[in-house]
């Protein structure tokens, strides 16, 4: 190995130029934005108790089902595909559960396998069409959306209540968190809690983080999203991976539907309308790129939390026109998306945003170096 290679300056590989990957940057932005927004809300709306533990935990309790859908979307988006059927699948699952429990008299425990089965069924069919028939995922899952939405009405066009005792006890269950409590105005204790749904969501999140980072399947997802042709040549079964991603997304949508039903226990034709959009926007805010290959499940968690927080903040702005809350919510979304696009430069190496981004990246990368320099200077100072 002692071949000496000619070495010129410009041939030096820029190993250290880009310390932080886009994924990392996006994650940092999202996390920072979330905490900034949270702290700002705490200060601005003092009377609304944002500093309470329960408010914080309810951000997750309220959106456990969306988190699952968003995680599913994170998985398919990372492979460069998309699934817009998840919202309707959620609605379908809730309707099936309600019908099973109330009209068919099934035992509550059966709702779990049935929810999962519905999700997996959608995942399998859509995954097959996307991966093995090579049909555009948008169209396939749009059909899935239509199908599920229509099936809800076929099963039952009106609202079905859930009265099953077991199921309602799951729905109402709370896992209190010790030591985290505040006192209410009337003197009662408001102890922070997690719902079983939130716990399931967190467990799924943890499993998914491990799967994405530490299993062959997880890495194959990124490889397929990064460059499917290369992945194929590197021995990744691209079709199978895409298929699996869709099945996983379907499964997560099934679980999400179940958690949704725990949260709002009823079957209603309007359940889950537009959740696909919520899930996609959560993923994107959390740093997933629609072009594939970039994103982390943790980012998605923060994406969901940001959306959840915005929902809490908007009513407090004191808007009296009926239409404004939604405009404001969209404005928040707009700010996030534009900020992100500015930061990332949208993969384009030109333009104002990219220059800004390069500068920021350079700053960030230079930071440790500069710090080291200061440190070294301090060290050498006494000598002089």
């Amino acid at each position, binding site marked *: 190995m002692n071949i000496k290679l000619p070495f010129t300056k410009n041939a030096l590989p820029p190993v250290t130029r880009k310390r932080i990957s886009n994924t990392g940057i996006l994650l940092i*932005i999202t996390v920072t934005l979330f905490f900034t927004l949270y702290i700002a809300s705490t200060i601005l709306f003092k009377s609304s108790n944002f500093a309470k533990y329960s408010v914080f935990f309810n951000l997750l309790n309220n959106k456990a089902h969306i988190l699952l859908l968003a995680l599913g979307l994170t998985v398919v988006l990372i492979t460069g595909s998309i699934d817009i059927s998840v919202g309707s699948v959620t609605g379908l699952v809730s309707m099936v559960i309600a019908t099973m429990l109330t009209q068919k008299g099934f035992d509550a425990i059966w709702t779990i396998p049935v929810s999962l089965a519905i999700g997996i069924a959608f995942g399998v069919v859509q995954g097959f069409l996307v991966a093995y028939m090579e049909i555009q995922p948008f169209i396939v899952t749009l059909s899935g959306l239509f199908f599920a939405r229509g099936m809800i009405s076929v099963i039952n066009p009106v609202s079905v*209540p859930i009265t099953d005792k077991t199921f309602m006890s799951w729905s109402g269950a709370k896992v209190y968190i010790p030591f985290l409590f505040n006192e*209410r105005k009337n003197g*009662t204790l408001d102890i922070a809690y997690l719902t079983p749904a939130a716990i399931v969501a967190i467990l799924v999140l943890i499993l998914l983080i491990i799967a994405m980072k530490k299993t062959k399947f997880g890495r194959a997802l990124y490889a397929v999203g990064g460059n499917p042709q290369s992945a194929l040549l590197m021995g990744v079964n691209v079709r199978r991976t895409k298929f699996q991603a869709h099945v996983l997304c379907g499964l997560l949508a099934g679980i999400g539907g179940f958690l949704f039903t725990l*949260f709002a226990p009823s079957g209603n034709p309007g359940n889950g309308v537009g959740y696909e959009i919520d899930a996609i926007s959560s993923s994107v805010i959390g740093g997933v790129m629609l072009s594939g290959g970039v994103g982390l499940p943790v980012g998605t968690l923060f994406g969901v939390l940001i959306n959840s927080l915005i929902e809490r903040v908007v009513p407090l702005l004191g808007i*009296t026109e009926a239409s*404004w809350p939604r405009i404001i919510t969209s404005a928040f979304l707009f700010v996030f998306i534009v900020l992100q696009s500015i930061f990332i430069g949208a993969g384009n190496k030109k333009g104002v945003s990219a220059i800004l981004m390069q500068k920021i990246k350079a700053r*960030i990368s230079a930071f*440790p170096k500069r710090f080291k320099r200061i440190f070294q200077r301090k060290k050498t100072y006494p000598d002089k």
Partner: protein
Amino acid sequence: MKKLLRLISFVCIFALLVMAGACAEKPSETTVPVGTTTSKSVETTPNAGDELIVVGFAQCKADESDWRMANTKSMQETLSEANGYKLILADSNNDAAKQVADVQGFIDQEVDYIVIAAVNMDGWDTVLTNAKNAGIPVILMDRTINASADLYTCWVGSDFKAEGVKATDWISTRFTADQEVNIVNLQGQLGASAQIGRTEALEDAVAANSNWTLLAQQTGEWSTDTAKEIMASWIQRHGDKINVVYAENDNMADGAIQALEEAGMKVGGDDGVAIISFDANRAYLQMTLEGKINCNVECNPLHGPKVAQIIQTIEGGGSPAKVEVVEEAAFYYDTITQEIVDARAY
């Protein structure tokens, strides 16, 4: 690891600056609508000593229809700061789960009262139990829910079946017992309590009158356009046989009238196809006056005063009645006057 921490802290600071910029712009954007409606409160300063009563209002979809907007506005105007209230409006955009989350948010924020116009009849037990435990009275508005009665304080709204009965009563005055009455029903969103009540009244009346026939019944989903499409297909199928159109809201009546007129059929009046509509918004009262709608049954959206009254009752230590029905009238093409139309605010 240390490096990463340093990086994060740097980005935090940067993002804070960016957000500060964004926040600084935000209020100017939002104060415009706020300013216009709160200007009153500046003139008539509220009783300085009293603290405002905080009311959390979970509206199903604040700008869904003209009726819903009037409903929202009524709440906002009655529960204004000038009157000693602070209203927090959460618009759930017809998403049941978001509405539950909104109500949970009110509980966390410890509002004094919660008013709910429910998206969904079912699935309220858990969150209402939370409200009860936190000691916050819940007032249901407009839409009923399936939940144990001890979970909420009272319900304010319309009696939809009674509305339907007013309409069927008018039909029986128009037609004699030997006349053939062929009715088509443009239903509202299936499962909505308004749809259920109004359809029920019609079906009861059809069953009770042997000369009445329900030719067709389909949901027009409260929409003009859909109703127009459906009505057109009915006209193709049934033609001139139809002599009563029972539209479960104004918008659908509008669609039906257009479809009929485009097919060259006479609408309303004494000899045209009888049109029955619900809600009685201003535009449709005008149409009633013009004779296009024969009977328009009011569905009163102005729940604000009633809600305020209930809150005052509770504040005073009393307990309100479990069901508070708002007053509603019916308007007929032959008796309505321009004054009635002009007096309508929505």
